[in-house]
Every structure is written in structure tokens, then in C-alpha cells.
């Protein structure tokens, strides 16, 4: 039986999302604007064109980054 929720880690924090939720859905959920960000899913970069197509699986690890002040 497929679980309703899966566990993922995003930027070091644990989270539960709908099974089968896409990257795009996750961003929407977290209110993260896709402009200017990059996403690593299990150490592989997910191109922006794949956000809608990439479904999350249990234990996925994501890094979502953007620029910050720095020198």
C-alpha cells in the first residue's frame, strides 16, 4: 500500500509532503519563487524545466539555494 505522505529533507530540515508531489509543488507549498534559485535533488541538479516533471520520493534530500550577500 502506497503511503499518503513521504519524508524528505530540504536544506537540512525534515518535512513530510504528499507522496508523488513534484519539485514545483514543493516550491509552491513553501512559497519559494523559482527565479534565481537552483535545486539539487540527491546531489543532482534539477533543471528548471524539470520542476514540474520531477516527483519526490521518500527520503529524498534537497538543497535549494539562491544568491546571498558575499565577497
Amino acid at each position, binding site marked *: 500500500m502506497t503511503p499518503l505522505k513521504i519524508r524528505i529533507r530540504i*536544506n*537540512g*530540515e525534515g518535512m513530510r509532503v504528499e507522496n508523488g508531489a513534484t519539485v514545483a509543488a514543493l516550491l509552491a507549498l*513553501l512559497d*519559494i519563487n523559482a527565479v*534565481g*534559485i*537552483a*535545486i*539539487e535533488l540527491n*546531489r543532482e*541538479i534539477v*533543471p*528548471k524545466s524539470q520542476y514540474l516533471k520531477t516527483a519526490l520520493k521518500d527520503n529524498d534530500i534537497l*538543497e*535549494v*539555494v*539562491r*544568491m*546571498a*550577500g*558575499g*565577497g
Partner: protein
Amino acid sequence: MEDRLKIGKYEFSSRLMVGTGKYPTNEIMKASLEASGAEVVTVAIRRVELKKGGMLDYVDAKKYTILPNTAGCYTADDAIRTARLAREALSTELIKLEVIGDEKTLFPDTQGLLEAAGVLVKEGFTVLPYTNDDPITAKRLEDAGCVAVMPLAAPIGSGLGIRNPHNIRIIIEAAKVPVIVDAGVGTASDAAIAMELGCDGILMNTGIALAKDPVKMALAMNLAVKAGRLAYNSGRMPKKMFASASSPAWGLIE
């Protein structure tokens, strides 16, 4: 003015690049960038904070060439990963490559740096490596395909100025790519000295951001880089041990 800075396929009028960290406020940062005359602006790559807004709006990507860095990376792997994320996030193949060796000095790990530079150049990145003032490493980075070398003047954030002008000069003499002094410039004369040595440009952050009046210091740096470059190009007078009158020796009253 024709004395432009060429880095890889890029070309700039300004020889000053500035960072975006540590400013008292984003407004002061914005005004400082403006006053500095910089065309290239460095940024770090960090996790999206799940709540607050970023500084993105304060750095106008249409106005500035954004140069993401890999600050905070202590291994070649982390630096490579960060560079790839930066490329994806900012749609740029430019990368200021840092592989840090030690928390106290923030000096580069030159082995890791060379390794990461090799990988990233092959992946099509335009690599500007933050390195130490070792001429051998600088040459190896150039040989690895970096479009510039960026030796430090002094530790990041130390404001000590060029600790070893002799090495910087040796690097410049040997380099076929631009030499950009990165880190350690604390005041305007430090910048002028670097340019007079023959550096092609300077990248700085703390020297401006932590001045009491960052906007004023940004303007000072803007002018100092130009002054140093002009002095370098104008061919300074030779130094002399003794005096030489500037008023005529003839025509004195008796």
C-alpha cells in the same frame, strides 16, 4: 578610455569588483556599489531561507555582472557542487572559485583549488580562482585554463593591504591572464599600491562594507583604483636617494 579590463570573453571599464557581504543595510550596499563604479559584483550561494526575502532585489543583475563565489567550501567537491548550483541559479558560467584551507586564515587549499579548477574549466565554467600569492600555484591555475588569477593581498577581511608585493609582482610578470588582487585591501592606498604594481584589477568587500561610511569608502576605492592604474600607465619618476631641485638652479639673485 581604451584601457579596458578583459577577462575571458568579458570586458569592463572598471577595474574594481566588489562583494556584497557585511554591509550595515541593503540600502547602504546598493549605494556603495553605485559609488564604487564596479561592473562586477560577487555574491555567495546559500540555502534559501524558508522565510525572509533575499538581497536579490538590491543587486540589479541587469546593471552588474554577477560573479558567484564558492565561499565556505573546504573541499574541491563542495566547491564544484556549489559552482554548479550557482550556474543553475544565476544562469552564468562565471565562478569565483574558493576552496578554503583553514578557518582561521581562510587561505586557499591550493591542492583542492587546482583540482576543482581543472574540473570546472572542463565543464565550461569561466573560472576566477581565489588563490594565495604563490607564483607557482598561479601559473598552474593559468595552465589549467582559468581566465584570471586572483591572489590575495592579505587574509580575507583583515584589511592589511599587500603583505608581499614582491610575490604579487612575480605573479604579474609571469601571468598571461589578468591578475586580480582579491582580499585584504583595507583602504584606498592599498588599492593604489596594488594597481601600481601592475595588477589588472581588484576585488574587495570588507574594506568598503566595514568602513564607518561605506559609501564614501566605495568612492575612495573607485578613485584609488583609477589613480593607481593611471600612475602605473604613466611611468612613475625614478626614485633617488638624494634631492633634486624642482626650481631652477639659475637666475638666483645675488
